[in-house]
Each structure stands twice: as C-alpha cells, then as structure tokens.
C-alpha cells in the first residue's frame, strides 16, 4: 500500500491533553453529581490511556479492561485474525458510574460494542465517554463527553495511537486509490 506516516503528537503533548481531559472530566462529574466512578479502557489504545487517567484521577477501584472484538457488528463480515486479550472488570458494574476510555472515536461502532459488552456484566448507573481523539464520519448516534483533541483530518488520513511507552499519535496518509 502507498502511504506515508508522520508524527502528529508526541508523549508530552498527549500528557498535556490528558491533563486537560481530567479537568474537563472533573467539572462534568460535579455537574452530574458523580462521585466514586469506575474506569474501563477499551483494548488496546484505550487501555493505555485509561492507565494514565486512572492514576491522574485517583480512581478507587482497580482499572477495568474490555476486549470488544467478539462484540463487533462486522465480526463475520470481514476476514480477520483476532489477537485478543481477556476482558477484566474487577468490580460489579451494577449501579456504578462508568468512565469509558477509548483512543479514537470515529464511526461509533466500537463504543456500541463496548456498551453491549458492559451490559452483559450488569446495569450501570451511567456511562461517560472519554476519547483522546474525536474525528468525523460518525455512523451511529454516539457522542463523547470529554475529548482531548479534534484534529482536522481528510478522509484519506488515518490517525493512530502508538504506545504504551511512550504514547504518540501518528497520521497515516493513504493515496486516494488505496483509501477507496
């Protein structure tokens, strides 16, 4: 495939974004009267970010992690070779406020899958969605509550979090004929 990769944000820029997200989240939580939430990261990039945010926010319960591969709505439509981790929610989700963390919000399908999976564990009181990057192309009515950055991206540009140490955001540009 013809493509070029370039660094968009480095570790320190991402750390600064995460700090801003924590501030925004605090005001969001106090507005909604949320105390003592639990946090869940979506594999793989969302887990890397959630580990940082979990520490910065001093969340009491251990971090939860979610593998959504087998909840994807296109699971049997696209040939894939899933390399998966087990999901791990070390708390009951019943009546808890959940902070759900992902790296890039685009179509919304990953979040739909994640919510379906969370509801197989129980009935949470609420879910707040945190995403480091938000870009267009939404295909479902799903919106984030707290976002790190909304970069102006062309349809042939693909943004990807690499990590876990150090974290970086890369933009990959695909030539028009490949993007189609």
């Amino acid at each position, binding site marked *: 495939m013809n493509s070029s990769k370039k660094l968009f944000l480095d570790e320190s820029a991402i750390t600064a974004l995460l700090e801003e997200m924590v501030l925004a989240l605090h005001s969001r939580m106090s507005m909604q009267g949320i105390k003592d939430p639990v946090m869940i990261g979506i594999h793989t990039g969302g887990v890397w970010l959630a580990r940082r945010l979990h520490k910065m926010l001093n969340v009491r319960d251990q971090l939860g992690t979610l*593998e959504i*591969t*087998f*909840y*994807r709505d296109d*699971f*049997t439509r696209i*040939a*894939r*070779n*899933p*390399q*998966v*981790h*087990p*999901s*791990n929610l070390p708390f009951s989700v019943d009546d808890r406020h959940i902070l759900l963390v992902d790296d890039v919000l685009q179509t919304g399908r990953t979040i739909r899958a994640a919510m*379906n*999976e969370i509801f*197989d*564990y*129980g009935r949470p009181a609420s879910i707040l969605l945190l995403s480091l990057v938000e870009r267009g192309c939404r295909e479902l009515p799903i919106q984030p509550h707290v976002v790190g950055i909304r970069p102006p991206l062309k349809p042939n540009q693909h943004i990807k979090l690499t990590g876990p140490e150090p974290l970086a955001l890369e933009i990959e540009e695909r030539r028009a004929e490949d993007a189609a």
Partner: protein
Amino acid sequence: MSHRDIQLDKDGRLRHFLTIEGLKQPILKQILDASDFFAEVGERPIKKVPSLKGKLVTNLFFENSTRTRTTFELAAKRLSADVLNFNVAVSATSKGETLLDTLRNLEAMHSDIFVVRHNDSGAAHFIANNAAPHVKVINAGDGRHAHPTQAMLDMYTIRHFKGADFTGLRVAIVGDVLHSRVARSQIQALNTLGVSEVRVIGPKTLIPAAARSLGVHVYHNIDEGIREVDVVIMLRLQKERMSSALLPSEQEYFQLFGLTEKRLRLTDPKAIVMHPGPINRGVEMASAVADGPRSVILKQVTFGIAVRMAVMSIIMGAAPNA
C-alpha cells in the same frame, strides 16, 4: 492436497480445524489466547457474546458422544449461534454417497459450521474438501486420526496451571496410545508448543511401533515413566480392547498401569492429573486420584467450552474457500 493447505485460507488464517498436524505455533497460541477471553465470558452473569448471531452450527455426529456434542452445542449457543444436532447412523455399505448426500441436505439448511465426529479417519477432511465454500469444518474426532479441540483444551489446561512457557515441562501420556486420536493430537500440540520432554507410557501392545519417530520417549513401566513429570495425562481405555487380546484383565491393567496415590508421589510434587473423560474408575486411575487435589479433570470440561468457542470464532473470521 496437504492438511495445511485445506486448513488455512490464503492469508494463513485458520479456516477449518481438522488436525494439529501442520499448524504452526502462532495459530495454536492464537487459539489459547482467545480461549482466555472466552473463559472469562464463562464467569460473567450473562455468559454470551454476539459474534456468531444468525449463524448455524450443525453437529454432525456419525459416532455417539454425548459430552463432546454437548460442549460444542453450549459453545455455539454462547456465541449466539443456532445449533442443529444431527446424529447419523453409520451405514457401512454406502458411506461415501451417504456422507455427500447428507452434506448437501445440511448445506441446503444454510449451515455455516459443521462439527464432525466419525469413526473413520479422514472423514472431517473429506467433508471439508466437499463442502460449499462458505462452510467451515471442525473435526470433533475421526477414527484413530485426530481430535484437535480435545488436544487444545488440554494445552489450555496445562497453560492455566503451569504458565505460558511450555518449554521446560515434562508431560507423560499414559494408556492406549496406539488407538488414541486424542494422544496423537496431544503429542503434535505439545511438540509444536515446544515441550521439552513428552513421554508415552503403556504396554507394548498399545504403543505404536513408530512412537519414537513422533519425538516422544517410550516407557513400558509407569513407575519409571512418571518420575518427576509436571503433567500426567491418562487416556481412556476402551472396554472393547479388553476382549481383543491386546490387554490382560482390567484388574491386571490397573495393577500395571493404573494411577494410584502411591504412584503419584513419584511425579513432581505440583504435578497435575488430566483425563479426557469419561473415566473408568479403578481401571485407568484410582478414585482417590480422580477426586484428589491434583486432579484437574473437571476444569478440563469447563475449559473445553471456552476453547471450542475460540475455535469457532477464529474459523468464522477466516475467508471462505477459494
């Protein structure tokens, strides 16, 4: 066509699961990792994922096996698939035609996965070679040839109790290795995962002459064979072998090869005891061992569901036949 060609799609993904033979370590590890995910699903309040919603899994059993069929059925249901159980009485005279006719009928019902159990070696391969392109086939035991999902649930059990690194392990397989498709698949899986020492233990009449060429150490004395092993896998003894002059009486077999608490003391102190079930108590092993603290036999049953969910999910992620 070699086994490997038919089992993998053009990008090397697992498309049918017919035998361990020819599969490389990354595929076996992919199955074990996915099994980790599904083992956790089995602990949830809702033990179900939607990945195979709307798909039809047909259990095509030409040989009776209630428990294997049941675990495949439960695995398919936990993946949200629909399940059809088709028990076929074997007709010795017109096997080939019957099999193909049966296949066409089941394809007409839009089956996506065939789980095949047959007393002829090669039956699952035959079906994989003749099924419609979109159909995936899992071998649930064919003749003396292979039982790959049993082998993988045994590997998963070993990994669960002994850690992800198989290389330093000593594993003993005890019993009728000659007639056992389970043992054949286990040996291939253990070798592929890099186990340093696989031993087979049994009377001369029940160990294949070519056993050493499989890369195993052969013992005819269990007290020597199980010394310091980390894992003891007991094979089921088919009752019909007893009357076929290959074996002495059950009592004598138990005296010579049965696993007792006394013999278990010869193994590594943390060794686990496995058995594919159903157990013949007092023939392959003493009840005190089967129910004892080192036995992981019931864990094998639980893990069997997760491993079969993993295999079904992975093959449904592969491309159709070219």
